[in-house]
């Protein structure tokens, strides 16, 4: 659980940021093995070049998983009700990704008070890579 009290969390409040990377080829190999996503476009440069790509690129779900951490490290994984993101640009090898979340709405649903958060992942050059939202329940 994070240091911020969910009950007093204000609209517009940012959550503590999570930064990861630069993303190495080792990380991509480990993510392929750990996740079971063996798409060679992420781990085999020969395959990538044969497909006309300059290099392998990162699994979108790697950033997705780290972006979810911003929310669960703060609210606790048990409070998470919904998490979704669009993959708006490709995450390249060596990108350093900044993952951020901001509270945007407070509402009632399922007999509990919930917060909606905007979540966004951005590379070191300002390029947005993922963009989505999360819903957490207040304890």
């Amino acid at each position, binding site marked *: 659980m994070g240091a911020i009290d969910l009950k007093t969390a204000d609209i517009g409040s940012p959550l503590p940021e999570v930064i990861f990377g630069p993303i190495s080829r080792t990380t991509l190999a480990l993510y392929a*093995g*750990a996740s*079971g996503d063996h798409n060679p*476009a992420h781990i085999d440069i020969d395959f990538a070049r044969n497909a006309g790509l300059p290099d392998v690129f990162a699994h979108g779900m*790697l950033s997705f998983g780290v972006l979810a951490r911003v929310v669960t490290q703060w609210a606790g994984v048990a409070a998470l009700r919904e998490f979704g*993101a669009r*993959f708006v640009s490709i995450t390249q090898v060596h990108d350093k990704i900044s993952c951020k979340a901001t509270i945007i709405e407070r509402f009632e649903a399922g007999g509990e008070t919930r917060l909606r958060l905007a979540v966004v992942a951005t590379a070191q050059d300002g390029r947005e890579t993922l963009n989505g939202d999360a819903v957490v329940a207040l304890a």
Partner: protein
Amino acid sequence: MDATTARKGIFDRSTKGVQVDPVKILVERGRIRFFSQVLGQTDPVHFDLDAARAAGHPDLVAPPSFFMVIEASANEERRRRGISTVQELVQVDYRYLLHGEERYFYEAPIYAGDEVEIGIVVTDFYDKKGGAMEFVTFESRIVHPERGLLVRSQRSLLHRLPEPRS
């Protein structure tokens, strides 16, 4: 778009509406630990059994995106049984594949030791950017025999279609 610039789709659109037979998957502690470690999880409920139990959980808690690990495990199981994986069914071509969107709706936690059933439906196909991109969407559900629906997902994948050869 005239005929000389038309791109040919790759997905097998006749699979729209196909419901893939559910597969049972045992959620392994070691797999949750490994996946959590690669994502840099700091909450010990994902890797430390004592911490998970102290927090009131029966076992290690799967991180939010562990859903895809269960899906990948289901595909491995299908491959072992000689059945098409979901990617083979819709005819994914990894040379052109990108992930469009992923969304999860959480009803209850997934724990290590759970034996869950995962079922997937091919929900739609559509084009964007004048046919330069083609999309497929899926919906899946992970169900526990006693605790019921745990998580459901919505996903889109896309092909960036190659220029037609003239």
